[in-house]
């Protein structure tokens, strides 16, 4: 039983199954901002299962603040952020389990308990085999001071914290980051209960 009895029972989650590509991908999904936007960065990586094999039928979604740390949403108590920044990315994985999101780096965000959350993206992963989405966060490797003061990262044991921090990928060009998502196994990504 829920600790909070609900007047209306929630609709339960079910898996997206193997055929999400029929209904969910958008041509502009991976482009939170158009490719070539000044300051745009790419975040790419692979979704891997417990055997280390690629997950070719997953969907990765991202949600984030604008570069000034605001959200284009009426519930941001500081007022709505810049119009025109979608803040949302969506990319199905390919045969190699890979995904790619093109976006602007988010700004830091005030934390609910005081303090400041380091720049981050919230991530949902959907896939066959997942009866509910799993949620993680992407932080940036060159924000060491901000990451060190982040209350969410601070609550994660040190040996697992690294799974939430993207890696710079200079071979892929300036502003390129890698973030692999391991659903299971020795280096299982930290997933959150939100």
């Amino acid at each position, binding site marked *: 039983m829920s600790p909070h009895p609900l007047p209306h*029972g929630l609709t*339960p989650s079910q898996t997206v199954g193997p055929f999400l590509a029929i209904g969910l991908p958008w041509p502009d999904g991976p482009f939170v901002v158009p490719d070539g936007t000044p300051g745009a960065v790419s975040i790419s990586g692979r979704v891997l299962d417990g055997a280390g094999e690629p997950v070719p039928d997953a969907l990765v979604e991202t949600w984030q*603040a604008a570069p000034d740390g605001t959200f284009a949403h009426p519930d941001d108590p500081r007022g709505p952020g810049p119009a025109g920044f979608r803040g949302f990315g969506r990319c199905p994985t390919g045969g190699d389990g890979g995904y790619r999101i093109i976006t602007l780096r988010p700004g830091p965000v005030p934390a609910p308990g005081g303090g400041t959350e380091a720049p981050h993206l919230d991530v949902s992963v959907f896939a066959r085999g997942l*009866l509910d989405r*799993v949620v993680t966060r992407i932080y940036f490797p060159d924000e060491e001071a901000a990451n060190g003061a982040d209350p969410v990262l601070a609550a994660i044991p040190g040996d697992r914290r690294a799974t939430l921090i993207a890696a710079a990928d200079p071979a892929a060009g300036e502003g390129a980051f890698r973030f692999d998502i391991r659903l299971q196994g020795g280096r299982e990504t930290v997933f959150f209960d939100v």
Partner: protein
Amino acid sequence: MTTDLPSAPGRLRLPAYQRPAGVHPPLDSPAYASSALRAPRRPLVPLAQGLTEITGPLLGAERVTAADADLTTRHGGEPLGERIILAGQVRDSGGRPVPDTLIEIWQANAAGRYAHGVDDHDAPLDPNFDGAGRCRTDADGRYRFITVKPGAYPWQNHHNAWRPAHVHFSLFGRAFTQRLITQMYFPGDPLFGQDPIFNSVPGPAARERMIARFDLGTTQPGWALGYQWDIVLRGREATPFEPGEERR
């Protein structure tokens, strides 16, 4: 980049969304074989809901045309199968309608075959049906699709496994916490008892909430059977706002 962040400690008052304890299926559900190598094994880490979680993408107006809600008219001819109307209301658990939110659906055709290269079920494709639709809820949180009833189909989970007929539904709500992807089922389906996905949801009451209701009032005489299915997303806890300050 960090100008003017009003982050005085403890001053940020945000709505909080109820946590759905016991409603969703456990990720680790051994009867569903595909979860074995994909469900995380470590406990989920509790995350305090901050600004990133209580906001979310407000999508839809620019992504949807009225024609997207009718899955039967997008090709040269009428798809085969039983024409149906799927309609309902999206609310939160406090009973409030969720207006202007994007709903995306996908489904098999009437023969139980998906228009997807990975589906190798030996049943015919229908050139007049791709199985994808989308719409945006109206000001009262209501939606309506026209489609055909999907067929059941076999799968490899266990010996003689068949999925009950279902339509996949994807919803955003108004916050990251409200994001939901689920499946809608049809009343009286004889395949419920052997389906590990349907039965992964704990408790008969919650499973019942995934089943649409046949509705003669939604049925159009001489044209299509009607089903009603209401969807309930996580609602807000009552506490954070001052009186008179609450926003929808």
